[in-house]
């Protein structure tokens, strides 16, 4: 009898222990609140390698908690990660504030995986002063706003000033048209042996950059017909952008040898001095310096997106959003945090100056990388004047971008299923870059048919 009950007890004990462990591991973090305090888990905490920004983040959290005793901020270094987002969302373990690139909001909004924050955002005194163009890309058709941007950018042309000089080009007069880019790329390749110009092509970046090329030639990716969006890229501007690439790749041989690359690959090679030019935002300065170790930051130059028949560029930014699974109470607290941490320094010159001063205390930080005005241009001028003493980036090397972009129209991503459209167009760009005899007309016709199928399914 004793022998037979012991195994039962052991097994039951094991099971109980396992069940407890499993339960503790599987229980969703509910709201993680302690007592009366509301715990807000936010993405956007800088990595330990960016010590200056991390110190500033910690100071901001302390100050915010002092001003809002009922809210406790828990920062995470996580950023938008498609691999874990859906799982964390379903398991209700996603942070209460997420940080994603501007390519993501349309999909997240369409799938209702993020929630509108229009209400709490409107209660801010200066809501009406937001640049409507910037908020438009974060809104749905009903006008509800789903996020706030951190430093809005416009795509431009990043170039290596040192390679320009070595190739006999004037780095203070960067190319303004695609013909000039081609000539410069050819010259860089011939004189230095490096890639003159590199176009991204994988992980949807090929379609994304083709969109930039199309906008700058006066084209569009999608257009509205009878209340529904259809593909509009099978037209002269996109054809011209692809033909230009084909010539640069196969006739001029000025694009290096690696043609299956994404943004990280390109910036890494750029930081190593292997690339003359690529399409990107001023944010790539930070990426090149902090992540890929660009030694001589004075080599970094950026100008506005070259134009050939268009007068437009693609907007870009990192944005903060609130997942749909977050409670209303937390969403309100999240907006409070976003206004305090990210929006006020882009509006209030005094706050901007204080933040810039703190950051500039560490020479490793990049202070003053220009952005587009989140409010009016006049407000941005005030901010620029207030932060000027603390700027440690070579502002003069960003001047061509600032001057040129002011004259361009900011275009958003394609309105419907942008990522799916980019996936299909990646293939077109890859074909042009890897097949000498690629038939551009046939490739675009097939891509148009494929995209129209996707768009039709999305707009059912």
């Amino acid at each position: 009898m004793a022998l037979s009950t012991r195994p039962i007890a052991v097994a039951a004990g094991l099971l109980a222990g396992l069940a407890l462990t499993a339960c503790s591991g599987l229980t969703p973090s509910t709201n993680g609140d302690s007592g009366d305090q509301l715990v807000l888990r936010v993405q956007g905490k800088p990595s330990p390698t960016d010590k200056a920004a991390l110190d500033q983040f910690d100071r901001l959290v302390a100050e915010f908690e002092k001003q809002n005793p009922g809210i406790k901020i828990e920062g995470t270094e996580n950023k938008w990660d498609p691999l874990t987002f859906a799982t964390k969302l379903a398991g209700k373990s996603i942070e209460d504030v997420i940080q994603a690139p501007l390519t993501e909001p349309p999909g997240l909004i369409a799938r209702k995986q993020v929630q509108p924050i229009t209400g709490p955002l409107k209660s801010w005194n200066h809501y009406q002063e937001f640049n409507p163009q910037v908020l438009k890309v974060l809104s749905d058709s009903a006008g509800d706003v789903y996020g706030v941007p951190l430093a809005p950018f416009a795509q431009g042309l990043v170039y290596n000033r040192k390679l320009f000089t070595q190739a006999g080009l004037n780095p203070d007069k960067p190319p303004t048209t695609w013909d000039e880019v081609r000539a410069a790329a050819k010259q860089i390749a011939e004189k230095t042996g490096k890639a003159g110009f590199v176009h991204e092509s994988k992980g949807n970046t090929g379609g994304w950059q083709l969109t930039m090329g199309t906008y700058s030639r006066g084209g569009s990716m999608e257009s509205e017909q009878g209340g529904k969006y259809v593909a509009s890229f099978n037209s002269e501007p996109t054809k011209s952008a692809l033909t230009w690439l084909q010539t640069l790749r196969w006739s001029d041989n000025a694009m290096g040898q690696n043609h299956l690359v994404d943004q990280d690959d390109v910036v890494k090679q750029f930081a190593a001095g292997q690339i003359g030019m690529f399409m990107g935002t001023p944010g790539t300065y930070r990426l090149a310096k902090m992540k890929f170790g660009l030694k001589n930051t004075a080599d970094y130059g950026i100008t506005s997106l070259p134009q050939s028949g268009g007068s437009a560029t693609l907007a870009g930014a990192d944005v903060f959003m609130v997942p749909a699974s977050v409670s209303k109470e937390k969403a309100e607290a999240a907006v409070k945090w976003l206004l305090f941490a990210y929006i006020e320094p882009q509006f209030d010159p005094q706050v901007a100056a204080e933040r810039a001063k703190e950051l500039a205390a560490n020479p490793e930080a990049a202070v003053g990388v220009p952005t587009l005005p989140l409010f009016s241009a006049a407000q941005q001028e005030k901010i620029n004047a207030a932060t000027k003493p603390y700027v440690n980036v070579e502002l003069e090397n960003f001047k061509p971008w600032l001057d040129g972009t002011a004259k361009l129209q900011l275009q958003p991503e394609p309105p419907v299923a942008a990522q799916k459209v980019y996936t299909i167009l990646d293939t077109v760009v890859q074909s042009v870059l890897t097949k000498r005899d690629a038939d551009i007309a046939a490739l675009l016709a097939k891509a148009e048919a494929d995209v129209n199928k996707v768009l039709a399914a999305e707009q059912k």
Partner: protein
Amino acid sequence: MTTALATRPETPAAVPEPPVRRRRAAGVRRELVGVLFLLPALVIFGLFSWWPILRGLLISFQQTNLVDPATWVGLENFRALTEDPLVGTAVQNTLLFVGLGLLIGFPAPLILAAVMSTIRRGAGVYRVLVYLPVVIPPVVAILLWKWFYDPGSGLFNTLLGQIGLGPYPWLQSSDTAMLSLVLESTWAGMGGAVLIYLAAMTGIPAELYEAAETDGASMWKRIWHIMLPQLRPVIGLLLLLQLLSTVQVFTEPYIFTQGGPDNSTVTVLLLIFRYAFQDGEYGQAAALSVLLAIVLAVLSAIYLRLTRSWSTS
């Protein structure tokens, strides 16, 4: 009376037999113990294997954003798959990977094991060298090979350039990208198979070879008529295991090429990944997973059938 006495059963008083109720209780208790010991494994399997499988099956008939309640859409997700031209491309590419894997990746460890079995001195060193790639994390190995394949400064083109060959585009061309993936995965995965073949080869009785040698059989005849038939069960087993793993190829195309160039390395699993994590089409991803699972189930059934027949033969 006598008859009655004669047919009387053995008296229970001498060896007391437990009553039926008590015997049953002991049996139930024994079973309960078994079930209790089994429960932890059942709970773990249930939570982390069976429930996700069941949930995946359900999602394949639903439309969901994983936040709001899902809506039932019948076979809509499966119908959407038939309309996506990439599904056909992904199936073709996966079959190409499987085929190239059979052509290159399957015989390579067998040949290597046959050669290594003849080496007497330093055999251990060779075994370690062959097995080493298996120990390297797959992502590290792939990133390493990405540099090997670099068309400009990569190891392969530099070495081949020394003897006047190339440069070859490797991952940069839709004609050679899949082959490049197969070469890496063969290198990375063959260590285990080589060791299994070597172990099986040591199990072949030496007398068979000696007898054949005495009869004047050449080396090829000895391989063909002795070694290969003796290794048949192992070859069959490894063949099916390779088929099962190559049908599910993901890491290589994901890290090397992300499906490019020109969709030439988009595989079924990479497409499932794109549906779920890029497009947020969880229903479509689940539907394609269900179809893939059916194919894998068929392959597994063949595997079980064959291994059963081999073990009885």
